[in-house]
């Protein structure tokens, strides 16, 4: 290893050395000039300028300027650039000013890929170019969420929670750990999360290993390459803003019962359970004379006031909280979800000239959540500058700074306020008779928290985040064809928070828990140092580009926090650690997260006659996560393209503008979620896990140690081997472009936390080891149609479809399967199981075939006695056909992976009006509606029930046709079509035959089609504006999420994982913050 590091160091030092000894070794005869675009009158950067008849070429800089050496006898320059028609110009005296005319074809567009830029038509890998204008259509504070439906091969799942992350997968699930793609912003590792979308110049998604292998260890999940705006031409000031209102789902979106319906459901439940009248739930009346539920007027913890007015003077918040019952029912949804404001303001200024260019922007983004006390407030600033020090030396920086405050709920979790909407009984009002929060303590059944109290109590909590991201760089052009570049950059993230936990006096559970205060801070840092040398030349019909580079990276994160409890006042001015009871204090500071990597890489692009294209890349990466000897990995790729339309035999096909066949093979890697200390066997000492009160103190314990993790020195990379074949075509002079890719992605040596053969017997945290393989196959398709119907009417249609099929092809030694528990909840066991031969994340449980109609039905059906069956309970399929139904009969009951997802953008311009609409859909994915656990089985904590469940549940009668207990030998289901089990609290109710196990009752079709955005805009006539010094003024109105078409019965079928870093567990509804809320905005775009 010593040698390897030494070699790397030598290379890095050499590159650095070359950069700083650069000289000016250019030829003497120079021609200078500028290139501008005809329509916009803006400079064209990266335009290629060639001396006709030679291989001498250069490209324009950011200001559109170029300098080229022209040999004697040559007088014509050929200028080409993406999006423009090629042009030959004759050199006169003085500077050459070239005006290029725009074409509709995007084939010549320059696209930034891995460490280099290429013309789109020269790309041999699979790269999706995102239309940034389409991207901006959807109002959102998180830029990664905007990728949804905008790039083929990219699956994005969002939620409606402001500032919440998204599940992003490029070509399916590529790891059981994090499948998040690597994001490169201006050449540096970054994040789309808080990036201002208005700062973005271009986004490319690198999908196949042919294009991601150059990123080696970071490439396995795909790479998103973002370039932010640079200054160009004259000074431009832009103001982009929108403001609008977000409308929560209206009415009673969970279809919850009101108080009389709820009381009746509980009453019926007790009837079917055989509970006699004297033992019924006291709140709804007991005693032989009761024939149905009585709705009380007041609720009290110790006695039920019933219909009589209680003595309100006995009120005591701690022991006798008196609450006036809500006899019609509280609309908890409406209490916590309210219309909310959203606004965004971006002001940017840019200019570019011969000596320098800059782009500055500031943004204020403020999205209130429709859920009270959730919001994202963010201030950002960007400063991108480039200085042309000499003709051949450029230095510059890109800097992005933001501050944000983003209180959120733990989305997709049974304990959050959204879940409490359906968990809390409707009879409970928001406030008690004294105006304090009301809750389940007065009701004495159920254990839900008051969701209003939960949210309002967070009002004074704080969470601040400051971040700086960016880089400084220097570029030197050497020997005409060689460019050296060094870039140093990274991210520094500093955060600080505190929160107070109140005594939930109104709750049935924990109503005397001590209050507490927690304060903490931490930082995450990452730097990346990249050095590259780029050589580009053409020899006759041969064109060659060579890149070599080195990269070093270091990540370091640290945090600490403190806590005290039993504050005698809950006043926020008291919220300091010192004000809590000292004996309750505790603090924590986790082990730092430390990671380093170092890499060398190279790339060769060769083209013959613009017809045959070949590219090869290789990267050698080392990372500290693994033990010396297993730290380095080599990741090669090869791709080839054949522009068949350049062949003579295709020349006569006039409608075919361009046709390229391409294919590639490559390898990328990942260290996935492997802990940075994976190689080491460690011991730890924590009070809860290894201290013991050996002295019998009762209030103090003696420190002890425990083996906390086993190391593995042999663990190494997870490898992604990808094969890709694609077609790119441009028809009718670029009016119709399409691109199709087929791929196969094999991830081998998946990094798993080891399960030893005897895992319970070696109960130490096991190291991550390599084992198991996943295979994804799929296709991506995208098409764009541009039409100019007439001079006033333009139409653009862009669509894409992504399909993947994921397959676990093997699991590591010792695993028969891998059950995946969701962090959202697991009261009925794991929902998903990964097993060889099945897709990642497939749902696994019992298959419901119906409900047992009577005892004879139980007897004649396959023996389900080990699962406590009963009349009106689920009858399960004997999946293995052994004549009995046991835990072995659980089977595959649904695949959360969609058959395909699709996006469709239609935009049109008519005179000064513009119109755009964007649809997104997901087809064929199954979802688990886990909310039903809480709402369809009232024995589950006697929480609220849906009217759907009430209407569909089995009703039990005896031989006389009277409502009866399920224990009655003659009990039978009176409504044979019932789908929901009988409401019941006996042993059969909570066993695996009803609410006690996961089964196909929860599975629903999660397909949907959503109109994500509809915009109508109007641009004011230029002539009017000129007088005010305004170049452009556009106003628009928008409706986001206008409609969603779905059969899903929950709030929204778009369901992200409860843990965004766990990709084996998604498509499960734990009361998701819905992403389908309508949002009406008005906006302006102004340029000066």
């Amino acid at each position, binding site marked *: 290893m010593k040698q390897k590091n030494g070699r790397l160091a030598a290379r890095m030092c050499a590159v650095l050395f070359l950069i700083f000894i650069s000289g000016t070794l250019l030829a003497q005869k120079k021609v200078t000039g500028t290139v501008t675009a005809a329509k916009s009158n803006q400079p064209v950067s990266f335009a290629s300028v060639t001396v006709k008849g030679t291989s001498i070429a250069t490209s324009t800089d950011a200001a559109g300027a170029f300098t080229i050496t022209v040999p004697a006898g040559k007088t014509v320059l050929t200028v080409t650039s993406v999006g423009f028609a090629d042009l030959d110009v004759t050199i006169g005296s003085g500077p050459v000013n070239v005006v290029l005319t725009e074409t509709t074809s995007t084939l010549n567009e320059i696209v930034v890929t891995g460490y280099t830029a290429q013309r789109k038509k020269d790309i041999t890998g699979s790269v999706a170019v995102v239309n940034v204008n389409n991207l901006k259509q959807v109002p959102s504070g998180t830029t990664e969420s905007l990728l949804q439906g905008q790039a083929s091969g990219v699956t994005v799942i969002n939620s409606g929670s402001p500032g919440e992350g998204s599940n992003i997968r490029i070509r399916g699930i590529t790891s059981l750990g994090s499948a998040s793609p690597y994001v490169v912003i201006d050449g540096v590792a970054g994040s789309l999360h808080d990036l201002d979308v208005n700062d973005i110049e271009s986004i490319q998604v690198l999908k196949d290993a042919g294009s991601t292998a150059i990123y080696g260890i970071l490439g396995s999940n795909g790479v998103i390459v973002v370039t932010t705006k640079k200054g160009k031409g004259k000074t431009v000031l832009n103001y982009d803003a929108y403001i609008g209102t977000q409308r929560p789902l209206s009415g009673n979106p969970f279809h919850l019962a009101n108080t009389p319906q709820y009381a009746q459901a509980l009453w019926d439940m007790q009837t079917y359970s055989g509970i006699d009248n004297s033992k019924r739930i006291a709140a709804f009346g007991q005693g032989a004379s009761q024939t149905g539920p009585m709705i009380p007027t007041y609720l009290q913890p110790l006695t039920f006031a019933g219909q009589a007015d209680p003595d309100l003077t006995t009120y005591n918040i701690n022991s006798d909280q008196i609450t006036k019952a809500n006899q019609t029912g509280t609309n908890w949804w409406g209490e916590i979800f309210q219309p909310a404001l959203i606004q965004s303001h971006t002001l940017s200024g840019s200019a570019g000239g011969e000596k320098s260019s800059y782009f500055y922007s500031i943004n204020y983004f403020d999205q209130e959540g429709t859920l009270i006390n959730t919001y994202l407030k963010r201030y950002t600033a960007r400063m991108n500058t480039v200085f042309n020090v000499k003709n051949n030396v450029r230095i510059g920086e890109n800097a992005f700074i933001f501050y944000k405050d983003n209180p959120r709920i733990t989305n997709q979790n049974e304990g959050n306020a959204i879940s409490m909407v359906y968990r809390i009984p409707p009879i409970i009002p928001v406030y008690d008779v004294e105006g304090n929060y009301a809750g389940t303590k007065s009701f004495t059944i159920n254990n839900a928290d008051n969701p209003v109290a939960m949210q309002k109590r967070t009002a004074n909590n704080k969470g601040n985040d400051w971040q700086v991201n960016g880089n400084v760089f220097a570029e030197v052009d050497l020997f005409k064809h060689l460019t050296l570049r060094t870039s140093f950059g990274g991210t520094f993230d500093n955060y600080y928070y505190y929160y107070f936990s109140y005594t939930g006096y109104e709750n049935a559970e924990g109503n005397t828990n001590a209050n507490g205060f927690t304060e903490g801070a931490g930082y995450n840092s990452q730097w990346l140092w990249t050095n590259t040398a780029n050589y580009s030349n053409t020899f006759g019909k041969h064109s060659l580009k060579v890149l070599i580079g080195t990269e070093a990276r270091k990540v370091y994160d640290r945090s600490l926090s403190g806590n005290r409890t039993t504050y005698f006042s809950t006043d926020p001015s008291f919220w300091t650690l010192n004000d809590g009871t000292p004996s309750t204090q505790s603090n924590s500071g986790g082990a730092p997260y430390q990671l380093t990597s170092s890499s060398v890489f190279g790339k060769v692009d060769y083209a013959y006659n613009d017809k045959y294209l070949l590219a090869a890349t290789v990267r050698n990466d080392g990372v500290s996560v693994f033990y010396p000897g297993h730290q380095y990995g080599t990741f090669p790729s090869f791709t080839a393209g054949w522009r068949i339309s350049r062949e003579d035999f295709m020349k006569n096909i006039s409608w075919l503008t361009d046709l390229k066949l391409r294919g590639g093979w490559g390898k990328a890697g990942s260290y996935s979620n492997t802990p940075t200390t994976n190689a080491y066997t460690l011991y730890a000492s924590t009070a809860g896990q290894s201290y013991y009160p050996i002295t019998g103190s009762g209030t103090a314990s003696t420190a002890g140690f425990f083996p906390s993790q086993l190391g593995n020195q042999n663990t190494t990379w997870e490898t992604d081997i990808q094969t890709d074949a694609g077609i790119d075509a441009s028809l009718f002079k670029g009016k119709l472009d399409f691109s199709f890719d087929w791929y196969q992605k094999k991830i081998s040596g998946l990094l798993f936390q080891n399960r030893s*053969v005897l895992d319970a017997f070696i109960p130490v945290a096991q190291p991550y080891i390599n084992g198991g393989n996943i295979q994804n196959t799929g296709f991506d398709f995208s098409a764009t149609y541009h039409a100019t119907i007439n001079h006033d009417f333009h139409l653009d249609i862009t669509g894409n479809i992504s399909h993947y099929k994921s397959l676990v092809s093997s699991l590591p030694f010792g695993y028969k399967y891998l059950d995946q528990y969701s962090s959202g909840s697991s009261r009925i066991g794991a929902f998903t199981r990964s097993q060889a031969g099945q897709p990642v994340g497939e749902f696994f449980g019992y298959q419901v075939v119906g409900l047992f109609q009577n005892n004879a039905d139980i007897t004649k059906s396959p023996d389900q006695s080990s699962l406590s069956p009963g009349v009106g309970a689920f009858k399960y399929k004997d999946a293995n056909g052994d004549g009995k139904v046991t835990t072995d009969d659980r089977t595959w009951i649904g695949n959360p992976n969609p058959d395909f997802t699709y996006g469709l953008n239609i935009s049109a311009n008519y005179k000064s009006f513009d119109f755009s609409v964007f649809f997104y859909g997901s087809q064929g994915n199954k979802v688990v509606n886990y909310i039903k656990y809480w709402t369809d089985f009232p024995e589950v904590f006697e929480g609220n029930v849906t009217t759907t469940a009430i209407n569909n549940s089995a009703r039990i009668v005896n031989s006389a046709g009277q409502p009866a207990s399920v224990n009655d030998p003659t009990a039978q289901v009176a409504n044979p079509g019932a789908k929901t089990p009988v409401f019941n609290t006996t042993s059969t109710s909570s066993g695996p035959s009803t609410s006690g196990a996961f089964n196909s009752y929860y599975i629903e079709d999660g397909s949907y089609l959503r109109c994500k955005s509809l915009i109508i805009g109007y641009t004011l006539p230029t002539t009017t504006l000129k007088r005010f010094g305004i170049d452009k003024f556009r106003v628009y109105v928008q409706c986001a999420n206008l409609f969603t078409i779905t059969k899903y019965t929950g709030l929204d079928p778009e369901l992200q994982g409860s843990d965004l870093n766990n990709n084996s567990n998604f498509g499960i509804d734990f009361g998701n913050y819905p992403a389908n809320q309508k949002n009406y905005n008005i906006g302006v775009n102004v340029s000066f």
Partner: protein
Amino acid sequence: MGACILAACSKSFLNIAPGGALSPSILANETGVQGLLIGAYSILDGEGGNNGGWGSAASNWTYGGVQADDAYKGSTPSDQSDIVGIESWNTPTTDGYPSQKWDEYYDGVYRANEVLRVLPLAKDIPAAEAAEITAEVRFLRGFFHFELKRVFNNVPYLDEKVTDTSGPVTVTNISGSGYVNIWPQIEADFIAAMAGLPATQSAVGRANKYAAEALLAKVYMTELKYDAAKPLLADLIANGETSDGLKYKLINYGSNFNPAQNHVGDAEAVFTIQTSVNDGSGNSQNAGIGISNGNYGDALNFPYGAGPGACCGFNNPSQNLANAYKTDANGLPLLDDSYSTGNNVSDPTTPYTGTLDPRIDWVMGRKGIPYLDWGPHPGDSWIRDPANDGHFNPKKNVYAESQKGTLSSVESFWANVEEVANNINYIRFADVLLWAAEVDIKGSVPNPAEALSYVNMVRARAADKTGWVYGGGAAYSAATATYAITTPADNYKIGLYPDGAFDNLTYAMTAIMFERRLELAMEGQRFFDLVRWGVAATVLNKYASIEKNVIPFYNGVSFTPGKSEYQPIPQDQIDGLGVTGTSYLKQNPGY
């Protein structure tokens, strides 16, 4: 830039020592080994190791109590539905609770063995201390295996040689066409512990010689090796002393369950699992649920709603248990099971008005009776779901109101007020006396007179009026677990068995079995007693047939002999594959 050049050019750029953790070499010394030993002790409470939770509670309230006729699961029917299978003697193989017990106590085994692995590497430990450490480790290793054995029966035994799992499988519960028998190894651990441990210890929480002897006796009693247990029990009764040097004796009954009294200076404590609160272990910042040193395993077992603890209403004593405390005119229990007839104790409408054994009111909270110093129990408003949970709350694990915040936790995590420093009486002296009585009846040389004297010792303590519960607002002393003597809280009457009563050995055994139920109720013992006596199916099926009249749960549930005595081996353990691609564990019969 300068820093990165240095870093990049340094050969150690990729080699980062782990931060915030201990490496093995740091622990190879006396402090390290003693620390590992404490780490092994810390698993005794069933929490803080691998997969701990309520299913691994050291008190065995689910396996020993809810599974028997002591208590109902409680709460609302679907809450902790993993207990439903246990309570109905039909545990699904995928049930989460047995998994917790399995994982947690095998973690204990691993930690114990780890001490023995590191011990030889430490060069600064004198031989005598090393021998003592080894003896403590063997006590713990025997303890964890014994607990696993009596819950799962067919379990493998692991010694310190089992370190790696990549090689051939050496750990299995399969032997030929049957199962392994690990009783000899468990016995050997306790025999070695007994030989190597001192009579008194530097810290009361450490096992001493007599604790090991009592554990060995418990093992023999479980195996029904009465004659092997006899000399051990005789020695314990004659000479036994606690780790803090107190001669064993019966103390005030209620004091056994008082967190102020059961830590140190508890002469009845033969082996106690220690707990502590407000020691930094229960804070949400560094602990997940279940990771704390208080009696987390019993955190659900408090009155619901506005009652003490304010959650969760589990482990409700059964009506059958309450009725068992009825006494006859002589203050003796109704051994003919007639206690199940007539009015129910504390029935909300027509309560039983006859005489009761006074221990009932230390065992359960029931309407109108002082609940320690929390005032009179209000009845069903402290019960979560009376139709399914009956009318009683557990009491032995609870703390007094005056102890709140000192012996209950104020650290901020879920339901912190239910975390209590109330120790778990794993073996107390009354238990030893009742074993000795049983041995006197069932051993090869019966001695009914001695058996009678032991049973009467236990009953005489219960008859001591200073230890009764008194009503009328009598002051409760949380320091001594006694009330000011006023009017007894109910109509108590308890008498001793007359001389010669145990001459009928069958009657004697019935009386001893009943006495164990009354004395040790709600202490996680009952089911294991029923199983070792071979009467579980008879007793529990009868119990179900009686109890279904008060609790709908017991409709249609039954105990299957040959299956229900033991929990299934967790399915994921069965499904773990050995090197040959086959399972290394065989499921218990009937599952």
